[in-house]
């Protein structure tokens, strides 16, 4: 069951907005409605957010994203459509039921922090709990804990005015965390922060999300932020959701020109990860094999290098074809392993972080999972091709066809023992 589901949500401002819904369904444009005194802010938005997912709604100002997020917890009542939170259709709730959902299920972080300037940081963090009627010692403990999580341990007695912008937003985050809801709405939460702090907060959010498994609906106008944070991204324009997909899908398969133009300036190297561009090695060598087997394999596949793996798929090393040829000539049984440390990397490293490594070693980048097992390789040429707008990589495959990681082991490569 999705944690959050919006179905056919419309939000239209103006007198008797229902007529706008009808008109839009009949195919009238936004401009036609404007001339009738109606402003459609959200048009037929349908999406669902899975538990534990960071779902980003990305759009420029005026695209309706902030209105959309407010219909989710009914700070604004949708003109039409339903919003289901954790199985409850909140569009039909009365004021009491709605307050219960807001207290128990869904909290919010605001663009300009929206802290109470006359209360201490600790009291601000505990706000949601105070509203719920929790006693003061319990809520102080919970607030402490939340402040601790966001790196503000010991600041509970300060006033918000004594804090920097980044720290204030941490208080906003702590307030949402302390409320203990599974779903968090974040309305341009980091947009008011300067770039360095923003980056830091993004990292912290990802980290917190992984630790606490929150479901997050994040609104932003910053595409790079969307790509960095979002498990999935909804691209919004003029009130409509144009496309929903992962960062890679949106980057490589934009549904229309608008999205394509939007993403063309994105720094692909910061979005695509090693897992997106890596290839399976054509062949790998068992670590117990000798130079003869290596020689045969390399000749067969026309390879300049070959990875040597252990039985548990961990990487033993790499051999170069000229070393192998020399070893065969000398008749030795010992594999002439490449001496230097191989350039190892993990599947979620972004391309931008791979370049230095790739440049500093003649060997291809070796992608390993958390258990040090081989999942793929990235030769220099693949890395360069990945930057060329996703047309092709080294294998002539399109990027999205590259499997993301290999589950059990390197089954696709030929293995000789």
């Amino acid at each position, binding site marked *: 069951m999705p944690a959050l589901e919006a179905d056919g949500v419309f939000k239209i401002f103006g007198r008797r907005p229902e007529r706008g819904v009808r008109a839009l369904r009949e195919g009238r444009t936004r401009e036609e409605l404007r001339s009738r005194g109606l402003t459609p802010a959200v048009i037929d938005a349908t999406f669902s957010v899975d538990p534990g997912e960071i779902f980003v709604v990305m759009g420029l100002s005026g695209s309706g994203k902030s209105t959309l997020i*407010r219909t989710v*917890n009914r*700070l604004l009542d949708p003109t039409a459509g339903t919003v289901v939170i954790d199985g409850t259709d909140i569009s039909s709730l009365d004021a009491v039921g709605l*307050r*219960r*959902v*807001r*207290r*128990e299920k*869904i*909290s*919010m972080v*605001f*663009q*300009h922090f*929206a*802290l*109470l*300037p*006359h209360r201490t940081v600790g009291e601000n963090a505990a*706000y*949601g709990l*105070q*509203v*719920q009627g929790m006693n003061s010692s319990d809520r102080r403990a919970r607030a402490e804990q939340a402040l601790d999580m966001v*790196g*503000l*341990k*010991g*600041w509970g*007695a*300060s*006033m918000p005015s004594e804090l920097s912008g980044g*720290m204030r937003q*941490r208080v906003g985050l702590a*307030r949402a965390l302390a*409320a203990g809801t599974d779903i968090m*709405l974040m309305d341009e939460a980091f947009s008011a922060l300067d770039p360095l702090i923003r980056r830091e907060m993004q990292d912290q959010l990802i980290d917190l999300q992984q630790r606490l498994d929150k479901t997050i609906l994040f609104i932003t106008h910053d595409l790079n932020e969307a790509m960095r944070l979002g498990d999935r991204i909804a691209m919004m324009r003029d009130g409509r959701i144009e496309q929903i997909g992962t960062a890679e899908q949106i980057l490589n398969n934009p549904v229309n020109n608008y999205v394509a133009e939007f993403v063309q300036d994105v720094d692909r190297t910061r979005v695509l990860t090693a897992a997106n561009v890596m290839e399976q090695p054509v062949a790998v060598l068992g670590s117990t094999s000798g130079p003869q087997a290596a020689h045969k394999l390399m000749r067969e596949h026309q390879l300049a290098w070959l990875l040597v793996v252990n039985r548990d798929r961990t990487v033993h090393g790499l051999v170069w074809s000229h070393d192998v040829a020399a070893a065969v000539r000398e008749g030795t049984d010992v594999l002439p392993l490449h001496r230097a440390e191989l350039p190892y990397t993990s599947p979620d490293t972004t391309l931008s972080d791979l370049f230095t490594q790739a440049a500093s070693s003649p060997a291809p980048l070796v992608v390993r999972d958390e258990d040090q097992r081989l999942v793929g390789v990235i030769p220099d040429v693949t890395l360069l091709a990945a930057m060329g707008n996703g047309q092709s990589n080294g294998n002539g495959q399109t990027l999205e066809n590259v499997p993301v990681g290999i589950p059990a082991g390197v089954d696709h490569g030929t293995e000789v023992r």
Partner: protein
Amino acid sequence: MNEEELTTVIPGVAVGDWVDQGVDWLNSTFREIFRAIGDVLGTLINGLIDVMLLVPPDVMIVALALLGLLLRSWQFAVGSALTLALIVAMGMWIPAMQTLALVVIATAAAVLIAVPIGILAARNNLVSNLVRPVLDFMQTMPAFVYLIPAILFFSIGYVPGVLSTIVFALPPGVRLTELGIRQVDAETVEAGQAFGATPRQILRGIQLPLAVPTIMAGINQVIMLALSMAVIAGMVGADGLGKKVVESIATLNIGLGAEAGLSVVVLAIYLDRLTAAVGGSGSDKSLRSLIRRNTTARRQPSTTAS
């Protein structure tokens, strides 16, 4: 030329007669209620005046100066002590205290009425639209006009003075309360809603505290208007500086007029500066902010955020 001689097709309308009859009707119908209100107000004012005159002027001046020190600065405290002493020196202390009591009571009543109306107006556009023209009327009607029905209802003395002062001084209290609440950052109010606060929790926990500076500016205005009206109230027999001014006009006594007028100025400046200091975050020189600074400094954490 007389008004009757004007050439016009517009028929005469006897607004004055209607009001006259209306007031008569009110007076005969609610006589008991008016008498009760009058008794309560009269007792309150006379009680307060008695208390204020029970305290020797020297003690009173020191107390008022200390209040100034607590809320504003030592310069203000010294200044107000000197000017208040001047009132005593001019022999205007008793009427000054009578006027001060009248202002205090009228202000308290005006605020008690104005703030709730302001809150309602801020939360409801209909109320706001209804209240605004009424406030305009109350503020622009020449102040003397209020005195006439007040005398009819309550005869002469403090009570009609206080009541017409309340009516005259009320509007800025309502207006600035409404403004203050409407001005509260929308996102902060949304934060309250988003965490499931009830409208009452939002009002008490967010809107009112954040509107305090503006509401205090309104109360400051109420006090200033009350003081100016309290002088006019001297015409209906309310004892105090106003009565001295009226007396000085009647007898063309310029000396008495100057002394009474100067006393009014001293009171006005004292009250204005004092309430302005309460409304703003306060000057740094006040005892209050000094105390606050010291307590927060002690609470300041020694560790910094990572």
